[in-house]
């Protein structure tokens, strides 16, 4: 049995590389269209989908760029097909125009961002023009990625909006023993907006447009201000309905709370657990949904804390959301940093238990929390 962010899996575990496990999770979730452009460490997901989808009657497209990958996904999703695409870093940046506009077109799809470091946080949670917003789910390991991938499709269809899964190099390339089985997250609204051509000639042909769904025959025509305001209502409803996801540990009496997400979040969880066993009153918060950010969970978790330390493998991006959540009530210190291998694709030397533990200890001391002997 595997404990994950969304429950307990009970099937037979298999040893799988993260990329293949995520691909398998997409397929069992009913994804039948995938489009992508190779880019490390996203590439192996594309490879797996190219292998898995055709035998099932699905389609995997080797797009000529990320621009076309998300365009193809847009067209497929418009037919009501469960659809995904993905990329990383610069490739995700190329997709941002479509990604933002998909919110206005109200087209659901899953976007897998296998980030090279954690520096895609801003473009994942805030990327794109206009007032678009999207749920972003960040697993800490392969098991959780399998669950959140399936949940992502469900949330996309539930809210008719793109959803992003924020993975990383570790999750892409780590082999883990995982259970991939179909999850049922409850009923979904019918896709009565999906296109198959059949409403043509009826006097009420369907229109899927980021400019709005008004028809000239109804004497309306385009009214962008009105339509954008309508979409804004839908987005607000999504944010109200969706309960932000986070894992917390040892926060009840913590002097210092450490915040981290994704694979580094799992490292921090381990470091904090060890420090607790050694007698340090430290706790952790691991945001699982990066957007909407688990603001309330964080506020509750720092009630006894004299300081909050944020560990990210970037120059510090999520720290902005931590500060916004706490609004100056608790000092927030950055203990992460940009770290990657020399290719800039992989994992940097800072992501190491002794280094992270030492930084947490240092953060405790600079916050005036005197640890005993041995730290």
């Amino acid at each position, binding site marked *: 049995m595997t404990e994950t962010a969304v429950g307990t899996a009970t099937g037979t575990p298999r040893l799988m590389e993260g990329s293949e496990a995520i691909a398998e999770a997409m397929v069992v979730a009913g994804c*039948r*269209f995938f*489009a992508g452009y190779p880019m490390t460490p996203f590439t192996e997901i594309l490879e797996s989908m190219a292998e898995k989808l055709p035998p099932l009657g699905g*389609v995997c*497209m080797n*797009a*000529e*760029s990320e*621009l*076309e*990958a998300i*365009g*193809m*996904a*847009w*067209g*497929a*999703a*418009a*037919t009501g*097909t469960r*659809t995904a695409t993905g990329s990383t870093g610069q490739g995700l940046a190329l997709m941002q*125009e*479509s990604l933002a*506009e998909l919110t206005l*077109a109200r087209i659901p799809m899953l976007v897998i961002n296998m980030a090279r470091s954690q520096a895609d946080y801003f473009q994942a949670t805030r990327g794109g023009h206009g007032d678009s917003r999207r749920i972003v789910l960040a697993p800490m390991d392969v098991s959780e990625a399998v669950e959140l991938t399936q949940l992502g499709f469900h949330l996309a269809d539930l809210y008719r909006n793109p959803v992003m899964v924020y993975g990383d190099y570790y999750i892409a390339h780590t082999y883990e023993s995982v259970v991939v089985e179909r999850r049922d997250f409850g009923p979904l609204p019918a896709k009565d907006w999906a*296109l*198959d*051509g*059949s*409403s*043509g*000639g*009826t*006097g*009420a*042909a*369907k*229109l*899927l*447009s*980021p*400019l*709005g*769904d*008004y*028809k*000239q*025959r109804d004497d309306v*025509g*385009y009214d962008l201000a009105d339509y954008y305001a309508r979409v804004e209502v839908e987005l607000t409803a999504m944010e109200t309905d969706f309960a932000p996801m986070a894992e917390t540990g040892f926060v009840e009496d913590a002097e210092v709370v450490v915040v981290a997400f994704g694979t580094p979040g799992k490292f921090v969880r381990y470091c904090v657990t060890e420090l607790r066993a050694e007698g340090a009153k430290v706790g952790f918060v691991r945001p699982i949904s990066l957007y909407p950010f688990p603001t309330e969970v964080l506020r509750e978790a720092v009630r006894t804390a004299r300081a909050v330390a944020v560990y990210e493998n970037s120059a510090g991006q999520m720290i902005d959301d931590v500060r916004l959540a706490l609004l100056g009530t608790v000092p927030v210190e950055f203990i992460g940093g940009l770290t990657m291998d020399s290719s800039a694709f992989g994992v940097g030397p800072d992501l190491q238990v002794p280094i992270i533990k030492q930084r947490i200890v240092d953060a405790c001391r600079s916050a005036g929390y005197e640890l005993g002997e041995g730290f």
Partner: protein
Amino acid sequence: MLEFENRRIVDTSRPPEVPVKLVDDFTPELIDVGAHHLCPGCGEPIAMRLVMEVLAEQELKNRALAVFGIGCYTAFSNNLDCEVVQALHGRAPSVATGAKRADPNLVTFTVQGDGDMVNEGLQEVLHAAARGEQITCVLLNNGVFGETGGHMTATTTIGQRTKNTLEGRNTDDHGHPIRIASLIAELEGAAFVARGAVNNAGNVARTKRMVERAIEVQLLGIGFTFVEILTMCPTGWFVETEEAPAYLDDTIGVANSPGVLRDIAPDSQSSSSTTIS
């Protein structure tokens, strides 16, 4: 009638003394509202009309999907009784690709202008053609960005005046125009490639047969189909409305002569393919 500088003008400051009487409604079956919001003399409504007539005549109205780009013609995307996906500027071929691959029963066509297709989205249409996507891309080519007010595109002809080539496009400063239909006709994935125009009745009839053939070939499932339609833009060309059809012949019509550039389909029931031009 009022007079202004010796010209008789229609007084639009109050309702007409005699109400307008609808003699006949010429609106094609799949266009919801006959009146459009484009400029007088624009060629795009004529091109849209003949595409929609072909779909109705071929009885494809309940399996057709249009993918629109962004330009003046986008005004038609919410005026059709045919299913529509609105794409971003330049992105219609990839969106059409995804829709057609996900639902092969669809008869899928894109509507794009020269700015949309040949400037912003050139690689989209070339790759869709090379892949042999079973879609029909329709290019409405007037050689300018009409919607922004008459600026140079990749198909603006040498010597043509636009708002950012005030002395006329020249090769030293602005390079050469792209003859997109000729380019696509070189690609093995393309099954049917033609170039028409809507600046006179003969060209409209010929272009309609090209669209008919393109849709027929799409249904054969043997490759990518493409129809370029040269359209008038008197507003963006800064010429009088009535001069625009002749201006088309003298500018983009010279560099892009109408005709069928490629047709690899085995002769279908319609043998018109060889006689279109």
